[in-house]
């Protein structure tokens, strides 16, 4: 029984996968509506690829279930799921032309020849590869191969498109270009796209919703804006670019003291923890009249502003932004606006 082409939602219920004693993924529960673009974000080894392979059927789950509406799909063989998958190394068939690669899924479905030709042409147009259709993958550039991989995955008109770090092998410029391309293709299809990445910029710019994974567990699910502004936990904050992490003593009502200096910030659930951790983006930490005293250790010019690192008397390294060039060894005071400082319980990692 193949997966239904029209559906309302994809549902993961407590999906887990262990390799021997190692729990690579545990209790992944998630609902994705049709048309949504979801990014699975996390550092390497966080279980995001495991999750994707479980959905694709390339890896059996060890617990939980996966549903498309009322059809259970985690018990279906990978061949019967009919999901389009884009692999990290593209996995194009090297002995087939671009056209044959894209038509492979349709040929396996024994569709009439005319229909295959029409749909392959359409997929080729979608990824703008009209002039390369009769070449072998080896004759294409990385970006073009990527487009073939996407076209091959979408040619079978899948309810679900799974992408496993598809841009990680491309250079920076091409990556930006393909990002827009992927978003455009997704919007044109109206399917569910699940996109695995370790790059938060990619996740933020592409996804409707981001699932942050760490150690095989969901740490936060939210829109890009939510995740960017208010990471729920200190480890998520670190991953979302809050590089500065200062441990201090809670001083009541959203305040944390660090020796002489006190910072005011947004209370993200300190509760009655004995210590608090202040997380600040380097972008938001600037020179101020009063703030954390530190000694400048390095400074570099990055276009509009200078970015530098400084060390506090406790030996904590801080990254900050400055309008002016500073001398190495200069004594500075660093602070940020209260809305840009997130305060977490200090025992959290």
């Amino acid at each position, binding site marked *: 029984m193949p997966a239904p082409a029209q559906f309302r939602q994809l549902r993961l219920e407590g999906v887990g996968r262990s390799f021997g004693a190692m729990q690579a993924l545990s209790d992944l529960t998630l609902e994705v509506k049709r048309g949504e673009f979801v990014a699975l974000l996390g550092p390497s080894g966080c279980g995001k690829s495991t999750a994707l392979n479980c959905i*694709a*059927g*390339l890896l059996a789950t060890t617990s939980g279930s996966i549903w498309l509406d009322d059809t259970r799909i985690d018990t279906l063989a*990978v*061949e*019967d*799921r*009919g*999901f*389009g*998958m884009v*692999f*990290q*190394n*593209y*996995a*194009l*068939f*090297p*002995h087939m032309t671009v056209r044959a690669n894209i038509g*492979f*899924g349709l040929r*396996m*479905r024994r569709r009439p020849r005319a229909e295959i030709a029409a749909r392959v042409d359409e997929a080729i147009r979608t990824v703008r590869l009209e002039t390369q259709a009769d070449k*072998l*993958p*080896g004759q*294409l550039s*990385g970006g073009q*191969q990527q487009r073939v991989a996407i076209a*091959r*995955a979408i040619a*079978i008109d899948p309810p679900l498109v799974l992408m496993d770090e598809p841009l990680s*092998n491309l250079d920076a410029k091409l990556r930006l270009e393909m990002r827009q391309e992927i978003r455009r293709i997704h919007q044109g299809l109206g399917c569910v796209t699940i996109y695995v990445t370790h790059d938060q910029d990619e996740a933020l710019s592409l996804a409707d919703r981001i699932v942050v994974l760490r150690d095989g567990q969901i740490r936060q699910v939210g829109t890009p804006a939510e995740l960017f502004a208010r990471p729920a936990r200190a480890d998520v904050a670190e991953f979302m670019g809050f590089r500065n992490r200062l441990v201090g003593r809670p001083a009541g009502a959203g305040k944390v003291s660090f020796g002489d200096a006190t910072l005011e910030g947004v209370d993200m659930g300190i509760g009655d923890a004995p210590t608090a951790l202040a997380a600040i983006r380097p972008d938001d930490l600037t020179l101020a009249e009063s703030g954390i005293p530190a000694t400048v250790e390095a400074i570099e010019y990055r276009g509009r502003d200078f970015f530098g690192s400084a060390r506090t008397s406790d030996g904590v390294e801080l990254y900050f932004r400055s309008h002016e060039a500073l001398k190495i060894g200069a004594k500075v005071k660093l602070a940020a606006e209260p809305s840009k400082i997130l305060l977490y319980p200090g025992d959290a990692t």
Partner: protein
Amino acid sequence: MRSGVPLKARLAARGLDGVTLLVIPALVLLVGLFLYPFFYGLVLSFMPKDGTLLGNYRKFFSDPFLYETIQTTLAIALPVTIVNLVAALPVAFRVRRLQHQRLVTTILVLPITLGTVLVAEGMLNYFGPQGWFVRTLTLLGLGSPSSIRLVHNYWGVFLSLVITGFPFTFLLTLSYVSGVDTALENAAATLGARAAARFRTIFLPLLAPGLAITFCLSFVQAYSVFPSAVLLGAPAGPTRVISIAAYEAAFEQYDYSLASAIAMIMAATQLVIVVAVLMSRSLFYRGPAAGAKG
């Protein structure tokens, strides 16, 4: 010196440097132990006892006792090679996915270290009329020692070539099978290709060139069979292979010229098969069997 560039640098630009000198020992061996004897034999084969140029070749192709050895050898070597290849392919596919790949590979490859004579001696006992194999079959009522004849005939040679040839064929096949990126198989599966279709559309075309090479090397090994054809076969009749004919000419009739001619004919017939198989490779894709990048 014509230009300001030192001689050493100019030689290096043409690919000649100190490292090139390391080729010399191999070159000496190649010339001394292969090229010289080969051409010596070639010339010798055109100097038969009867004094004509093509006397040996005329003799070979007019005497059924001699020219039929080609057919006899092919009748052993071709089926053995095909059986080995067909048997090695699924084993290689399975071993590729094993965790203890090394252990299994070692066990499978062990016969290669034994040598054909040792295997032949063992087989004479094991497959002989009083051997375990025949006695077990007899016990199970599947035949009698007189009806199951597995040595001193075609099957004796066949079995020994399978036993000694399989590890070699398997090792080569395994390396080609391992060379196919598993992501390709996964990609084909997500696109709806079942195992049989994946084998037919992905693996077979990508493996074909490698399997052709494997076939050639295994075939050449089987074609030059000698010890087991003598020890396990019926060297006077059904397993009178071409190397036996050459041996008899050289060491029983002391006609080195005829023996050389037979050796040349042996080489030529092998070459025909090998060239035919390798030419068929051009029908297939020949490139890296991995995703083109990454």
